[in-house]
C-alpha cells in the first residue's frame, strides 16, 4: 500500500510531470486523478508563463497538495475496503457439524415458555415442597424463603417496588411462574443443579407459591394447572422506552460554559467507607447491586433449646414441644430465651403480657410504635390474630411472614413463648 501511495505523492510534490502509472482495480482509486492532472498542468503553465505569477503558482501548489492528500486518503480507504471484508455470507452451507439427534435435543432443550410450553408431566404439593425446600433450599433461602445473608429472598416484599429499597421476590416481582420452574429445574440447588426430579421441582415451586400467599396449603401444582396460576407482577414491566423517554432529552449541542451557577459537593464516598481493602474481608452494610435485603441472621437453634429448660408448670409439655418445632419458622429472625437479642426481628423473651412494640433498641414499624403509645398488650387473642395474618393485624409490619394457617400451630407457639416467662 505504501508503495502505491508513493507513486502518487512523489512526482506531484516534486512538481514534475505527473506519472500516475498504476491502474487500480477499483473506481475509488482513481478518485481525484483528473483533478490532480488539471491542477498540475495549470501549475506548469503558470510557471512557464511568468515569474509575476509566482504567487498564483504557490497558491495552486497548496491547492494541489491538498487535493493529493485527499486522493491518498481515498486510495487508502479504497484499499482497505477491498482487503478487509466481513466473513463471506454463504449462498449455501459449508456442510459442517452433524445432525442433532432427537434425544440430544430433548436432553438440552429444557427451557420453559411463559405459557408453560416445555413443561414435563408431573406434580407436587405444598407440604411435599415444604420438606424438599427444607432439604435443598433453606440453607440459603431460609426455611420460609425469606433469604439468609445476601442470598435471594424468595417470598414477601409485596408493595415495596416503589420503595427506596424494593424487595424483589418471586411473589413481589417475578412476572412469570415458568421462570421459577425453569430456573429451579435447570440451575438449582446451588452446587447440585439438575439433580431434582421433575416432581420435586413442582413441589418446590408449589411451596414458593405458598410462601408468597399465592396458593393455599392444600395446593398441588402440576403441568395441568400450571397456566392457571396468576402472578402478582405480571403486568409490572414495560419494554425499554429509553429511545422515547431519554435519548431526545440527552442530545443536541452540549453546554460548554456557565453551565451551572455553582457546584457543591453533596456526598462523599469516604464518609460511607465501604470500599474494600486488599487482604481483608470487610463486611460493610450498604446499598448493593444484588438487591440485598435487610440482614437476616439465623439464630442458633441450640440457644432456644437450652433456654427452654425452665418450663412453667402450668403449660402442656407436649404443646410446648410442638411449639418449639413450629418456632423454627420464626427462628431466622427472632431469638427467645436467656440472652436472646434483637435480630432482624425483636427478641421474644417474656413477650406474652408485654406491651406491643416495647423492646428497647428495636426499630419498629409505625404501626407498632402507635400500639406501644396506646399501651396495647400481647395477650393470647392479639398474638393469635397477629400470627394468623401478620399484615392484616398490623398494617405495615416489617415482618415478612405470611402467617400460620393452623390454629394448633398458633396455640403451640404461644405455649412455647410462654415457657420463657420468668
Amino acid at each position, binding site marked *: 500500500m505504501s508503495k502505491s501511495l508513493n507513486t502518487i505523492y512523489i512526482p506531484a510534490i516534486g512538481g514534475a510531470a505527473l506519472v500516475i502509472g498504476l491502474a487500480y482495480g477499483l473506481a475509488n482509486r482513481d478518485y481525484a486523478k483528473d483533478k490532480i492532472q488539471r491542477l498540475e498542468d495549470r501549475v506548469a503553465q503558470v510557471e512557464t508563463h511568468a515569474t509575476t505569477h509566482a504567487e498564483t503558482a504557490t497558491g495552486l501548489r497548496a491547492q494541489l497538495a491538498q487535493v493529493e492528500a485527499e486522493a491518498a486518503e481515498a486510495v487508502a480507504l479504497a484499499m482497505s475496503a477491498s482487503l478487509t471484508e466481513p*466473513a463471506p*455470507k*454463504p449462498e449455501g452451507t*459449508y456442510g*459442517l*457439524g452433524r*445432525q*442433532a439427534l432427537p434425544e*440430544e*435435543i430433548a436432553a*438440552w*432443550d429444557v*427451557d*420453559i*415458555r*411463559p405459557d408453560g410450553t416445555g413443561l414435563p408431566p408431573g406434580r407436587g404439593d405444598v407440604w411435599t415442597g415444604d420438606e424438599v425446600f427444607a432439604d435443598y433450599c433453606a440453607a*440459603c433461602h431460609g426455611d420460609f424463603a425469606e433469604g439468609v*445473608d*445476601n*442470598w435471594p429472598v424468595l417470598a414477601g416484599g409485596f408493595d415495596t*417496588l416503589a420503595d427506596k*429499597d424494593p424487595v424483589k421476590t*418471586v411473589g413481589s416481582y417475578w412476572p*412469570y411462574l415458568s*421462570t421459577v420452574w425453569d430456573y429451579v429445574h*435447570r*440451575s438449582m440447588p*446451588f452446587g447440585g*443443579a*439438575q439433580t431434582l426430579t421433575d416432581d420435586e421441582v413442582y413441589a418446590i415451586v408449589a411451596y414458593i407459591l405458598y410462601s408468597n400467599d399465592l396458593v393455599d396449603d392444600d395446593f398441588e401444582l402440576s403441568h395441568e394447572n400450571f397456566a392457571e396460576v396468576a402472578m402478582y407482577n405480571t403486568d*409490572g*414491566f414495560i419494554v*425499554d422506552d*429509553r429511545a422515547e423517554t*431519554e435519548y431526545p432529552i*440527552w442530545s*443536541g449541542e*452540549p*453546554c*460548554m460554559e456557565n*453551565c*451551572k451557577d*455553582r*457546584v457543591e*459537593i*453533596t*456526598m*462523599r464516598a*469516604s464518609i*460511607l467507607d*465501604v*470500599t*474494600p*481493602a486488599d487482604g481483608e474481608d*470487610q*463486611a*460493610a*452494610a450498604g446499598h448493593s*447491586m444484588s*438487591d440485598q435485603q435487610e440482614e437476616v441472621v439465623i439464630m442458633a437453634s441450640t440457644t432456644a433449646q437450652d433456654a427452654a429448660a425452665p418450663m412453667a408448670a402450668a403449660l402442656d409439655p407436649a404443646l410446648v414441644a410442638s411449639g418449639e418445632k413450629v418456632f423454627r419458622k420464626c427462628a431466622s429472625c427472632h431469638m427467645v430465651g436467656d440472652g436472646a437479642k434483637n435480630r432482624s426481628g425483636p427478641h421474644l423473651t417474656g413477650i406474652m403480657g408485654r406491651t406491643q412494640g416495647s423492646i428497647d433498641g428495636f426499630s419498629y414499624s409505625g404501626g407498632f410504635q402507635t400500639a406501644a403509645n396506646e399501651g396495647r398488650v400481647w395477650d393470647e387473642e392479639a398474638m393469635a390474630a397477629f400470627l394468623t395474618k401478620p399484615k392484616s393485624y398490623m398494617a405495615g409490619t416489617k415482618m415478612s411472614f405470611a402467617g400460620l394457617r393452623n390454629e394448633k400451630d398458633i396455640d403451640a407457639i404461644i405455649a412455647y413463648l410462654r415457657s420463657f416467662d420468668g
Partner: protein
Amino acid sequence: MDEMLKAPSRRAFLRGSAAVAAGAAAGGAAANGADPLITEVQPWASGLGDGVDATPYGMPIEFENDVIRRNVPWLTADPISSINFTPIHALEGTITPQGCAFERHHSGAIELRKEDYRLMINGLVDRPLVFSYADLERFPRENHVYFCECAANTGMEWAGAQLNGVQFTHGMIHNMEYTGVPLRTLLNEAGLGAAGDFADKWVYVEGADASSNGRSIPMEKALDDVLVAFKANGEALRKEHGYPVRLVVPGWEGNMWVKWLRRVEVMDGPVESREETSKYTDVLEDGTARKWTWVMDAKSVITSPSPQSPITHGHGPLVITGLAWSGHGKITRVDVSKDGGITWEKARLGKQGDSKALTRFYLDTEWLGEQWLLQARAMDETGYIQPTKHQLREVRGENSIYHNNCIQTWYVNAEGMAENVEVS
C-alpha cells in the same frame, strides 16, 4: 485499607512530597547532586538476567502486582456467584489484558475442554445441528474489538457516592479483540427457512455451566453483529471468560455474552428466563420495571487522576486520561470539566473511536495544586450526550441497579489525592 487506598498516599508522600516542595524536581536526585542510579554501575547493568524459558508463559513483573482484579465482598453472598472488577485505574490504551479483565460468574468458572465442547443449534431451523470446537474453526471468521460491560457497572452508585475507586465504580468492563464466527453463519448452516418471517423471531442462547444463564436475543441482532468467539486478544479465551467458546453481543449488556455457549435455539418469542425478568430489569421510581434494556448507553470516566491513581508528581504538566464507550456505535467526542460541570473543554481522543469499543481520551493540562471537581462527558455518533446522575434519577429514580451511565465526579484536593463525590 489499606494496601490499596493508603498505598498511593504513602507513595505520594515518599515520592511526591519532595517533588511538590521542590516544584517538580525531575530526574529523582538531581537536586541533591548526581543520581547514583546513573553514576554508579547497577547490578542489572553488570550481572545477568533470566534466560528465555524462565517463564514459558509470562506474567507481569512483580512490581506490577497491584494491577489485579478486585472483589467487593459485601456485594454478594458467595464469590462463586459474584463479580470482580478490572483495574482500569492502572491500565492504558484500550485493550484489556485477559488476566485482569473482570469476571462475573453465576455458578463459578467451569473447566470445559475443547474436546468436550458441543454447540447445538435447534428450534425453528431446517436442520438441527451439533458443532464440535474443531467445526467452529473451519467457518470463515472475523476479528473485532468490542467492550463488554456488565449492566450493573456503576450500579452501587445510584443512591450516592459509595465506592472510592474507579476500579469499583466503573471496573465491570473490559475491551478485547475477539476472533470468532458470526452467529448468522451458524444459523445459516442450520437453515432459517423454518423460521419464516424474522420480524417476530428470537434466538435463545444458553451456557454449559450450572447457572445456564439463558438469554433471549431478537433475530435482527442475532443476524447483525453477534459473534461466536473462541479467541480474545490473540489467544484462547480464559476459563473465567468462557473457554473455549463464548458469545459476543456487541454494545449490549454483558449478561447476554453467554459463556461456555452450548445451545442456540431459534424461537417465536422470548423465554423470559430468570436473567431477563427477575434480574437485568430496571425498576423505575413508580415500581414498574423496564425490561429488554439491552443496549449500554454512552458513558465515560476519568481513570487518572482518580482515587486509586492520585497525582503524585507535583505541580506542572499533568495528563488527565480516561475511557469512553457507547453500545450505539462510535464515540465522537469527550469533554472534561475541572469545576464540576460549570465549564467544559474538549478532550483529545487517543484515536478515532471504534464502534462499540473503548476509546481512550486525554486532556494534556497543568496542575498547580488547585482543587478540582473532575468530570468527563461522552458523546456518541447518534448525538447522545452522557447524562448527569441527577438527570438519570429524574427519569428513573434510584432503584434501577442496572444501566447507570451517569457522569462521574472525582474531587482532587490540593495534595493531588482524589475522592469519589457527588455534586449539586
